[in-house]
């Protein structure tokens, strides 16, 4: 195996990347290699779909398969090698269908179909042993000796950014929001990767194109969430347990959460959100369920302890899953793209078994002392008080806005983000998205100019909401987004965050501080490009970075 897609990838003096029998995330070598093969086949599918689209022919089912397949390969999503053997065989059939679609469309238009090699012509072995023997053809670093680390790293940036786009687009799709432009962009990127590009320029352009596609994907997801569940509003969320039977729902998928709430209605079962599902409490149609009682635990990396202590079934609807421990693996369920060998999987959105499990497990014996936090400051809420915000900035009551957001993780350097939130002066506002907030969201930050100083805007994909707010404020002040008293302090862990970063770059947002470490696939030369073209900076010390941001603002 070789994988360096996430922030926690193994780093040593010899270089970065997980290349032994098991990655830092717990993904074993066979699964990693099979994921490479699956993505290689998807490149072939995308290549045919891209060229078919040129003749006006499309296959939405194939596009949907690509979204799902890519999603399964994100960090902490699917660890089940057998699932990949199955998906690879399905991918080969879909690729053949895409090929026929392209060739028929080309001939109908009077053109001679092109013959594609590489991924488009790859014939997967029928079983795992054969597939593992083929994995070298699909390996991320296969051409590194001839092409060099820069080109391979930039290909990786495109591939990993594409994973994030696909994941967000999949979330939107399950709630009925699809965008043809996203499918066209995904196919375009796959066509480029399938053609094994050997120039930096087209890859850099593709990375930015994916950033734009990701903006569309986040917009589609925003439309999906608000269209289905209403507009988020400030909401007090209980963060301590309530006596009674209990189900914990983790991941990002609000449709699954809704299905679980429906399935548990009037059954005496309380439902808790975990991790990135916290924002669900702010959506009117979800918080209308009185048995959605609260949020439990912290960010994903604490799950082995928290899940072990939770007295009911746990459903993991998307990333981030880590190795299930013996104490709870029997009551853990995966859903959607998630999987782990030997863990029950729900593939049909029927959560009846989870309800049975909740009734059979003890639940919480007692109420814990009540503690709440406030969430739900989506774009409509913030823009609803835009006049107040604008006045406060003009009078100097609010000096600066910090968007402290992104993923959390176990690395010690992530204390930076809690330090940053605590050190930010009282006349500044902290906006937050993603699960990085768990480092500070149960603490008191007070108010400034009549507004809470900590505004939780939602999930990582609600970066869209933050960008809408920034754009509207920039319009109100008649300046560009980069001229606003706003700094983005981004923590990344996996590929959704990589896609969000590409969106920020594609939209020309500068003043982004990225940490806790820079992606291992970005070579020093690539980092130089990002610094020079986009003003991206690595984090340093919280106090120093705050001072630098405020002095820029001044």
């Amino acid at each position, binding site marked *: 195996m070789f994988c360096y897609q996430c922030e926690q990838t193994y780093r040593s003096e010899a270089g970065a990347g997980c290349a032994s029998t098991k990655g830092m995330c717990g993904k074993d070598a066979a699964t990693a290699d099979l994921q490479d093969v699956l993505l290689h086949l998807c490149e072939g599918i995308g290549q045919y779909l891209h060229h078919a689209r040129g003749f006006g022919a499309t296959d939405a089912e194939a596009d949907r398969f690509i979204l799902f397949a890519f999603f399964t390969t994100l960090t902490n999503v699917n660890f089940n090698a*057998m699932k990949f053997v199955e998906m690879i065989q399905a991918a080969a059939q879909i690729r053949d269908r895409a090929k026929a679609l392209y060739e028929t469309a080309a001939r109908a238009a009077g053109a001679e179909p092109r013959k594609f090699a590489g991924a488009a012509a790859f014939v997967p072995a029928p079983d795992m042993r054969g597939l593992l023997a083929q994995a070298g053809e699909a390996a991320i670093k296969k051409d590194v000796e001839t092409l060099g680390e820069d080109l391979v790293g930039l290909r990786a940036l495109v591939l990993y950014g594409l994973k994030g786009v696909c994941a967000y687009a999949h979330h939107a799709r399950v709630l009925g929001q699809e965008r043809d432009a996203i499918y066209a962009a995904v196919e375009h990127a796959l066509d480029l990767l399938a053609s094994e590009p050997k120039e930096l320029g087209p890859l850099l352009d593709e990375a930015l194109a994916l950033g734009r596609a990701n903006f569309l994907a986040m917009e589609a997801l925003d439309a999906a969430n608000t269209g289905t569940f209403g507009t988020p509003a400030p909401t007090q969320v209980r963060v301590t347990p309530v006596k009674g039977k209990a189900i914990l729902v983790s991941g990002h998928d609000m449709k699954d959460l809704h299905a679980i709430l429906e399935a548990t209605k009037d059954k005496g079962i309380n439902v808790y959100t975990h991790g990135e599902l916290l924002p669900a409490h702010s959506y009117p149609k979800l918080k209308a369920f009185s048995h959605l009682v609260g949020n439990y635990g912290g960010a994903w990396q604490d799950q082995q302890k928290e899940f072990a202590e939770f007295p009911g079934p746990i459903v993991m609807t998307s990333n981030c899953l880590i190795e299930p421990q*013996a104490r709870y693996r*029997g009551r853990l369920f995966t859903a959607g793209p998630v999987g782990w060998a030997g863990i029950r999987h729900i593939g049909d959105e029927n959560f009846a078994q989870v309800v049975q*499990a909740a009734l059979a497990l003890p639940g919480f014996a007692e109420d814990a002392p009540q503690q709440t936090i406030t969430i739900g400051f989506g774009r409509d809420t913030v823009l609803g008080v835009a006049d107040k915000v604008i006045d406060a900035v003009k009078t100097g009551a609010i000096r600066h806005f910090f968007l402290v957001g992104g993923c959390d993780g176990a690395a010690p350097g992530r204390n930076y983000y809690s330090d940053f939130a605590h050190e930010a002066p009282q006349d500044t506002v902290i906006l937050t998205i993603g699960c990085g907030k768990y480092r500070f969201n149960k603490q008191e930050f007070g108010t400034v100019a009549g507004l809470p100083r900590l505004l939780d805007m939602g999930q990582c994909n609600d970066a869209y909401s933050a960008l809408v707010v920034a754009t509207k404020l920039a319009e109100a002040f008649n300046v560009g987004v980069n001229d606003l008293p706003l700094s983005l302090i981004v923590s990344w862990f996996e590929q959704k965050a990589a896609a969000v970063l590409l969106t920020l770059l594609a939209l020309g947002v500068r003043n982004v501080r990225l940490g806790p470490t820079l992606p291992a696939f970005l070579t020093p030369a690539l980092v130089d490009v990002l610094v020079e073209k986009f003003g991206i900076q690595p984090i340093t010390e919280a106090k120093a970075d705050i001072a630098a941001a405020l002095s820029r603002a001044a």
Partner: protein
Amino acid sequence: MFKVALLTRDGAAIAFDAEPSETLLDAAERAHVYLPSSCREGGCGACRTTRKSGDVTLDSYSSAALSDAERDAGDLLLCRAHARSDVELAAPYDMAAIGFAPIPERRARLVEIAPAGSSALRLVLQYEDDPEQGRAAQFIPGQFMELSPPGAEFKRSYSLANTPNWDGRLEFLVRLQPNGAFSTYLKEKAQPGDALLLRGPQGQFTLDEASPAPRWFVAGGTGLAPVLSMLRQMAEFGDMRPCRLFFGVNRAEEFFAQDSLEELHASLPDFSGTLCVWKPEAAWPGFTGTPAEALARALEETQERPDVYVCGPPALIAATEHVCQTAGVARVYSERFTPA
């Protein structure tokens, strides 16, 4: 007080302190580390680990649980071992097999008792609702429980044959032993409605989910129980991988669970079973010999090198391990049972 460092098969490090007067197993439990074990009397071998450094002494134990050769190679039984210096140990199981809370003890009612072939019984027990534990039957296929009849002082270990479930059902296959304490209870006293005390789940004989290889199972007699649990879970989870079963008994009338095996044939996409009779009547049309012999023959016919799981009497385990070693099978997982 000495320091004990235990490294698991998957590379996790566990540390605890041990007084010379206590066994390493007790010392670990004092530190809320519950290592796989069963009889705690040096008789079963479930707590065997390998000493990498340091000095230990061992109380008396059965050579069935630890042979001289194994002891010479550094193996020890945690339930019999006392530290005489700081000790480093290597465990043959993953971190997931270690518990960090005491092994639960719960009551369950006997709801079904019926013959399983000519020399075993099938028992179904039902957990009673418990405010702290609920009623779910949570275990990992392959694990066992210690069972005590109502009012009895003794307990006996039996593997679960069904899959984890939310109804609290626990299925066991028990071979009847002449004069065996639990067998005597079953033959003479057991009635549906009896409340038995169960201690578990325990044990690390579970599927190696990290390995993508095909799975072949070797079962002797009621050693089929944990294998049935594993196969049933694979069927329940829609596991597509190829698997084979070599199931042996002494005489054909001892066979049981044929309906369960038929269900597995219907639900697992790539499953085949070989029934083996060691001493058949003349009319037996199937394989004659032990399941280890059937395994050897099947390995000769393929290049495939599967993971092999074996449960049965010690002689069957030894024979299977020998067959696997000869054929170059790298991963063999075993659970031995001894008559009791």
